[in-house]
């Protein structure tokens, strides 16, 4: 196991470095460590770090580029020995080993924090390159304005994003239509009416809904909600008489996915709105009560208008969640891309198609697989835009009362 042995080598380098550095510092002190600038352990740590760290970084870099094992081993050992020797030479009576160690650690901390930037960069690069590749093979205008989505790996596919966007927006709309009223009223009740005990009991209960994995909601949509809706709105249901043969023809539909996604978003909307309503200063409420307003009048005419920007921000965040949600739509919304107004039709979304285009046995160079990256790019841009806008609104609102 290559990785293990490299790890063992690095550990050995570090241990050897620590002992050697410590020994050298002690020797320089001549038996009285008080004359040293730093505690000997810092000297040891410095040698250990400079022997192991560059070697570690180098080995990862080389492994990522897939060089031959001999080169990998040689380079790692060389880097380790150089780091070891150079840092060991520095150790002496007046050498500020602690400051050096702290500088190295600070560098590591900065590197860890920068990983967030690297991740974003990785996302953007992996999306951009493949998207460009896709648009070389498929015209940009046909992708953005095409109303047909008929991928076929034999070639001659129509890959228009509009039906997918429509499905995404429709399902998100249904989800928000469920989640926003329920979540908002729950938040109002919890923050304005409920006693401490009720609040303490109900809030965690609602938040359980947020902790349930989305695959569970997906299964719930596919196996429970879909068949239930079908029994009511399907050809055999009581509503079949109104529409010829019923509105719904299969368990998977916009309504199924939207409803379940709405349930998932309730705690999201309610806890965000709860925070925002709580941030409205009590003085505003007291003023309203003093003028003789009832509690509900205060909420509707004073608290809500004051909290409105924040609540809009919360709804936008929920919308971005709904647009990016994958498992519920993969299992609950169906696979057919269509532009229809009937909420009981099966439709599909951007996320569901990313999954289906990338999980087949498709050749990664074909437009049918590459389209998933441009779908991902669209999704990324849309959700990012929504998030930035929403966070901007929420932040601006918070500052208003601070």
């Amino acid at each position: 196991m290559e990785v293990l042995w490299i790890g063992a080598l690095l550990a050995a380098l570090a241990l050897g470095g620590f002992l050697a550095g410590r020994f050298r510092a002690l020797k320089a002190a001549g038996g009285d460590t008080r004359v040293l600038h730093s505690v000997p352990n810092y000297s040891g740590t410095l040698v250990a770090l400079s022997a192991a760290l560059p070697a570690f970084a180098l080995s990862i870099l080389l492994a990522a580029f897939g060089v031959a094992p001999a080169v990998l081993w040689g380079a790692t050992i060389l880097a380790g020995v150089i780091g070891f020797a150079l840092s060991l030479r520095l150790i002496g009576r007046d050498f500020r080993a602690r400051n050096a160690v702290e500088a190295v650690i600070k560098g590591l901390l900065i590197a860890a924090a920068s990983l967030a930037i690297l991740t974003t960069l990785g996302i953007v690069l992996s999306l951009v390159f493949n998207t460009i590749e896709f648009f070389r093979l498929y015209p940009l205008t046909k992708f953005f304005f095409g109303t047909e989505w008929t991928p076929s790996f034999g070639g001659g596919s129509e890959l228009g994003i509009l039906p997918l966007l429509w499905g995404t927006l429709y399902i998100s709309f249904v989800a928000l239509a469920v989640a926003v009223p329920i979540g908002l009223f729950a938040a109002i009740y919890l923050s304005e009416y409920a006693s401490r005990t009720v609040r303490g009991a109900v809030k965690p209960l609602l938040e359980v809904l947020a902790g349930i994995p989305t695959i569970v909601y997906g299964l719930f949509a596919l196996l429970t909600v879909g068949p239930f809706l079908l029994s009511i709105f399907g050809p055999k249901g009581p509503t079949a008489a109104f529409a010829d043969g019923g509105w719904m023809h299969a368990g998977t539909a916009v309504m199924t996915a939207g409803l379940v996604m709405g349930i998932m978003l309730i705690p999201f909307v309610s806890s965000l709105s709860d925070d925002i309503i709580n941030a409205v200063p009590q003085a505003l409420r007291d003023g309203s009560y003093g003028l003789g307003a009832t509690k509900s009048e205060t909420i509707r005419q004073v608290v809500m208008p004051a909290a409105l920007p924040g609540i809009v921000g919360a709804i936008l965040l929920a919308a971005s969640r709904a647009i990016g949600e994958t498992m519920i739509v993969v299992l609950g919304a169906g696979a057919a891309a269509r532009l229809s107004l009937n909420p009981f039709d099966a439709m599909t979304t951007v996320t569901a198609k990313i999954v289906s285009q990338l999980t087949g046995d498709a050749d990664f160079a074909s437009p049918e697989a590459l389209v998933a990256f441009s779908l991902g790019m669209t999704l990324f841009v849309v959700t990012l835009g929504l998030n930035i806008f929403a966070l901007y609104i929420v932040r601006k609102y918070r500052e208003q009362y601070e």
Partner: protein
Amino acid sequence: MSDASPNTARPVSRSLHHVDARTKRRNAAETRFKALGIGAIAVGITFLVILLSTIFMNGASAFEQSFLRVPVHLDAAKLDKKGNRDPADLKKATTFTYAPLIQQGLLDAVQKAGIETPLTKSGDMKNLISSSAAAQLRDRVLANPDLVGQTVTAEILASSRVDGYLKGRVKRDQVAQDKNISVEQLDLADALLKAGILHKSFNWDFIFGADASDSRAEQAGIGIAMLGSFYMMLVVLVLSLPIGVAASIYLEEFAPKNRFTDLIEVNISNLAAVPSIVFGILGLAIFIQFAHLPQSAPLVGGLVLTLMTLPTIIISTRAALKAVPPSIRDAALGVGASKMQAVFHHVLPLAMPGILTGTIIGLAQALGETAPLLLIGMVGFIATNTPDGFWDGFVSPNSAMPAQIYEWAKRADPAFYERAWGGIIILLVFLLGMNIIAVVLRRKFERRW
């Protein structure tokens, strides 16, 4: 001063207790509004109750499985033609040799119990028995060649149709078109149940076993996928805890207020809201296409989930660091500690319970995440192999619990749905356990300053 009193326009209430029409209206509006709030909460909690009870009602049956207790005569003439009990020769007898033996054993048991049935040939028993039973019996014989020639009592897995019939999933009126079971066979199953030959017992194989192919729902288990999840969580824990803590310490304790720090902060808050499927695309493009890490490996899954959970962990860790009062830092600095020493020797240990709580919650989130795993290939195959050794577990193809559930949900045979719900129960038990640990940690070690 005007002569006309404004009160003449409206009759004055005689008493505060007398409620006029307008007050009534306002009070009614108040009650309605409050009722709406209660209604919203009731709806939310009802959804929760429906969801949980659906999971439990559909999934509980996955933990029970039907078995047939059958004495099987391991005919030496068929299994060991050379008669030397040599394992190499025994291996030549395939499952096709074993299957008729089991069927004959079941038929004998049926006749011995005096059950009247039109099914009198051993071949008629085939649909009652799982197609994996022969392989299991063969493994048992290969492990212990002395069994050949004896009559052993074997716990034989019943077929998924019989299992479904006992659990109420397969109904009599549906089996007319079903070529995998007939009404007579269901009658026989009833009689076998009465005779004690067919029985249900706890399904350990579901919890610890491997997934099975499309036609053998009765054998499918989530154990291997659980192992895959375990390896992924190890990767996530080992990477995200140190990196997350280091990033938070920098941002909270050292970062100067400048453009670079702002850039990091903006990136972290945006990454927290990027849809998980996008992280899957990242994993596919960077780890698999670019770095050529093995597909379907828990290592790659763990890396992707690490990137996904880092923002969550960073946000909660920063909150924990912020909760440590500045006086602690000042005291440390005052007695001559460097800033780094003040943070690592004093602030970090005090913030540790909060950091661990946040990490566990982040891990719980990662454990339930499915979408990115679909893109890096952790579905679509049958996870049957236990990894050879600890290190192999990271790189050999595997599934994960949520991916396995998704896989079962997509299969055509409804017998797998029960497994999917059962898998969800196991997944939720893990999540519940992790959250309880987090709550206990918080309760036990939380300090109020």
